[in-house]
């Protein structure tokens, strides 16, 4: 049965029937005969020397099978790898042992691994290990860590600075000399904890005889896990199978290679028993990477009409105690290239210092570098408006890159934006909120002493992380193409293998829509397979809003090659030349003669029986395609947030949130909207709720869901969404990606609104989180003055 084009329709997700009936299959759901449980004992100190580990009591407990310390693992497994090392950054990568050998460097650093018959016993035994520590001075904040006399984490990393990165273009000094207005602002982007609802975990099963490791891992990129695991354990890549079925959220925190799965793998090889390791939530808070944590010193040069002519940023990024897998790329490349935002600023320079501290390592968190940059430039637009007494919209319009300017090369020349019409999205957003009426409402509110604010964010982000040549130039230790196999079976069903690895983004549905569109088969006949390195060719996974732009393109090209072959076979069966047939609704028919037709099923079967193939055409109906785009994609949009701060509670109440996004063409509007809802909530939560809090000794005070403020159902209202469509020229679907857009856009939108609300108090900037406590305190202190 042929179907009308499913591209662009909100069909229900094919993932859902299993997930709503409790039939999902997450890592903790794996059950294997003879499986043991592993628990990792973690350091309670932020910085200490281990002087003794006494495991005797723990080892004697019934049900305990083995205990490993750092020293036991030195010969079994290499250090946790850092795979993104920007060139020319003088990077020093400290050794990150899966279990600490002599020194622990953050609360949560692994100290010992206990393997037992069940989880309760493993945890009891871990608690019974007696570790003697000699505590050392700890340093938690990046600026403190750089100061003379600060505690040093490593002998070979002076001043705890792991790297310095510079990117710049234009003549920044001249721009500052010739500007009408120059100013400086320190902007803090606080540390966040990703909090995927499923904690991390792994099940490792090493088979004697075949010498094969099967590893179930809750990861965003199973092939990267296989690649790095092979390098770290010396198990040949041919003998490692990484499986990743349902993944309960990632948000960047499931990109890195972690100690847990490395230890589970080598312990399984040692004991020849399957090993399950699943974090509990408290462990997740300290052992899974955190995000953001920047202090940014921003210098701005502007003209009196609001044009920004120069931007200079010195960023201090807190990397934590070690450099996690992709961590150095986040505050360097992913941050620096986005500092100009949607604005035509020709003189931009950034200097980034990656600083080691006695805290959990940071790495990608939804947006990864781009939210930090966007927050800066969107705050800068409002600061310029305030200082020049201009409307923030006017300043934005004055600076926008114009539609005729694309492709637009940024000041440093490092990347070129694909396409855009920034004023169009902004105009639509203004129309939706009725800006004039809103400002009037604000005037009335202010006259009554209320704190009412309107904030904008006219953001852009770089997505569709690729191409591979750029990855290499940026020092990323891998490629960024994506793979797809489209396999038509003799029964005309279609299997698609994809190298991406979703964590809820719905590609099991949208990818089926793409294939259905290309091949004219019903969506129900298309099976999308991911998360099995034995079935799927090398791919790089799901992050950086790249899955559909890169992975979807790979499958579209593979499907088109399948179609070409079907036309050759169909034409042969119809006894005409391939030029004389067309492929329509899945069938091959003679041009102008729809009754002279071979159906999809007939051609598929003919390809496999191969009784009557055209000359030079091989049997079978399966195509593999590796797609490496020529460039990134650049979604953009205009978000407007209206807040009112309750003077009595300090709560910044979101009255309205309007988002007009341009993510290019849309395969499934329902899924795109869902990505935006969740993204916006995460970005708003950074602004008003979430923050990772360490005390001066490096203890994580916000170390449980009781103490770390994740948004609840009642935290924010419904979001009002609309779209403009500017197709991306770099992929066959003309789409740009949407996974991170909401998060990148919403943080500055609400902070600009909160600061606008506070502006009658003379406020120009307020650091996040603008939590009720901090806002209440601020407003009341001002009143006191």
């Amino acid at each position, binding site marked *: 049965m042929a179907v009308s084009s499913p591209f662009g329709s909100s069909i*229900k*997700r094919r*993932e*859902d*029937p299993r*997930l*709503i*009936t*409790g*039939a*999902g*299959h*997450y890592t*903790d*759901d794996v*059950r294997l005969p003879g499986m043991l449980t592993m628990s990792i004992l973690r350091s309670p100190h932020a910085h200490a020397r281990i002087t003794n580990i006494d495991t005797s009591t723990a080892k004697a407990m019934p049900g305990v099978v083995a205990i490993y310390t750092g020293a036991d693992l030195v010969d079994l497994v290499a250090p946790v790898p850092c795979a993104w090392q920007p060139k020319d950054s003088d990077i020093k990568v400290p050794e990150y042992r899966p279990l600490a050998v002599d020194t622990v460097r953050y609360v949560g650093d692994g100290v010992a691994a206990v393997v037992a018959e*069940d*989880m*309760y016993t493993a945890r009891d035994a871990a608690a019974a290990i007696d570790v003697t520590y000699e505590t050392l001075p700890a340093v938690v904040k990046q600026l403190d860590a750089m100061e003379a006399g600060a505690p040093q984490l490593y002998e070979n990393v002076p001043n705890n600075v792991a790297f310095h990165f510079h990117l710049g273009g234009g003549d920044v000094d001249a721009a500052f000399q010739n500007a009408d207005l120059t100013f400086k602002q320190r902007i803090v982007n606080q540390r966040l904890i990703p*909090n*995927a*609802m*499923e*904690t991390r975990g792994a099940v490792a099963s090493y088979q004697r005889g075949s010498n094969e490791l099967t590893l179930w891992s809750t990861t965003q990129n199973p092939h990267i896990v296989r690649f790095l695991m092979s390098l770290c354990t010396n198990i040949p890549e041919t003998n490692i199978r990484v499986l990743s079925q*349902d*993944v*309960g*959220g990632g*948000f960047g925190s499931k990109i890195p290679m972690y100690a847990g799965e490395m230890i589970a793998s080598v312990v399984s090889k040692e004991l020849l028993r399957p090993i399950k390791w699943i974090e*509990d*939530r*408290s462990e997740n808070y300290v052992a899974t990477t955190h995000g953001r944590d920047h202090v940014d010193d921003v210098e701005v040069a502007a003209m009196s009409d609001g044009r920004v002519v120069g931007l200079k940023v010195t960023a201090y990024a807190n990397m934590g105690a070690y450099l996690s897998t992709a961590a150095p790329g986040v505050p360097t490349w992913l941050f620096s290239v986005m500092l100009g935002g949607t604005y035509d600023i020709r003189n931009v320079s950034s200097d980034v210092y990656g600083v080691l501290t006695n805290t959990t390592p940071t790495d990608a968190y939804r947006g990864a570098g781009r939210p930090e940059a966007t927050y800066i430039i969107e705050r800068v637009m409002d600061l310029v408006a305030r200082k020049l007494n201009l409307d923030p919209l006017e300043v934005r319009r004055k600076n926008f890159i114009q539609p005729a300017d694309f492709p637009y090369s940024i000041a440093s020349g490092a990347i070129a934006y694909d396409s855009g019409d920034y004023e169009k999205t902004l105009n639509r957003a203004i129309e939706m909120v009725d800006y004039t009426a809103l400002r009037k409402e604000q005037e009335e509110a202010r006259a009554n002493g209320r704190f009412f604010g309107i904030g904008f964010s006219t953001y852009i982000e770089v997505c569709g992380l690729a191409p591979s040549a750029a990855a290499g130039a940026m020092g990323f230790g891998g490629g960024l193409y994506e793979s797809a196999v489209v396999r038509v079976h003799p029964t005309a069903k279609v299997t698609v293998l994809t190298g991406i690895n979703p*964590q*809820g*983004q*719905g590609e099991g549905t949208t990818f089926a829509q793409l294939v259905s569109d290309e091949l004219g088969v019903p969506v129900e006949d298309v099976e999308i397979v991911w998360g099995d390195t034995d079935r799927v060719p090398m791919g790089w996974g799901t992050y950086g809003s790249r899955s559909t732009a890169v992975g979807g393109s790979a499958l579209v090209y593979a499907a088109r090659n399948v179609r070409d072959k079907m036309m050759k076979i169909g034409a042969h069966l119809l006894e005409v030349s391939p030029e004389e047939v067309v492929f329509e609704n899945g069938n091959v028919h003679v041009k102008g003669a729809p009754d002279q037709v071979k159906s999809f099923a007939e051609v598929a079967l003919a390809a496999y029986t191969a009784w009557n193939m055209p000359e030079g055409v091989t049997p079978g109906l399966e195509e593999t395609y590796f797609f490496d785009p020529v460039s990134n994609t650049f979604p953009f949009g205009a978000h407007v947030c209206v807040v009112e701060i309750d003077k009595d509670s300090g709560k910044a109440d979101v009255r309205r949130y309007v988002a007009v996004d341009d993510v290019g063409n849309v395969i499934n509007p*329902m*899924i795109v*909207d*869902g*990505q935006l*809802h*969740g*993204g*916006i*909530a*995460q970005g708003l939560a950074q602004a008003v709720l979430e923050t990772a809090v360490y005390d001066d000794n490096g203890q994580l005070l916000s170390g*449980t*869901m*009781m103490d770390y403020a*994740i*948004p*609840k*159902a*009642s*935290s*924010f209202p*419904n*979001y009002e969404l609309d779209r403009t469509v500017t197709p991306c020229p770099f992929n066959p679907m003309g789409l740009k990606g949407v996974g991170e857009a*909401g998060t990148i856009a919403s943080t500055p939108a609400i902070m600009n609104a909160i600061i606008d609300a506070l502006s009658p108090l003379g406020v120009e900037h307020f650091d996040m989180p603008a939590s009720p406590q901090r806002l209440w305190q601020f407003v009341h202190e001002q009143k006191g003055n």
Partner: protein
Amino acid sequence: MKQQVTITVNGTTHTSEVEPRLLLVHYLRDVLDLTGTHVGCDTSQCGACTVHMNGDAVKSCTILAVQADGAEITTIEGLAKDGELHPIQEGFWEMHGLQCGFCTPGMIMTSVNLLKNNPHPTEAEIRHGLEGNLCRCTGYQNIVKAVQYAADKMNAEPAAAGDD
């Protein structure tokens, strides 16, 4: 010392010897292999482990298996009857009320309870009623719509509102 418990789960009665400290959620997952109920935190904040005990929504990470001795438990696996989805399950599917799906079983079990206690909730009542369940993916907007969808459907067909 292990203790004997008899617990009826999704209509089937099980008698097991369990450690007194065994949490109900681990009993369901590890003794009965009902892995649809998830563990998302260890402080009873996230609600991923929500099941029904004697008709009320409870967080099964906060209850010991021995406390459930003699109780009737319904888990996400027991919600659909005769292959037909419960209106709440249908609502989550129709309204795109889930992404990664990890919080979903608990979210659905809480929603069923919410509508049992308040068949005509306002949006604010739904949002308030779901405060004990965390979702990191959806921003809750479509979860609220899913509950509204189910409320409308159950109010239109009172028979579908049957308790578990």
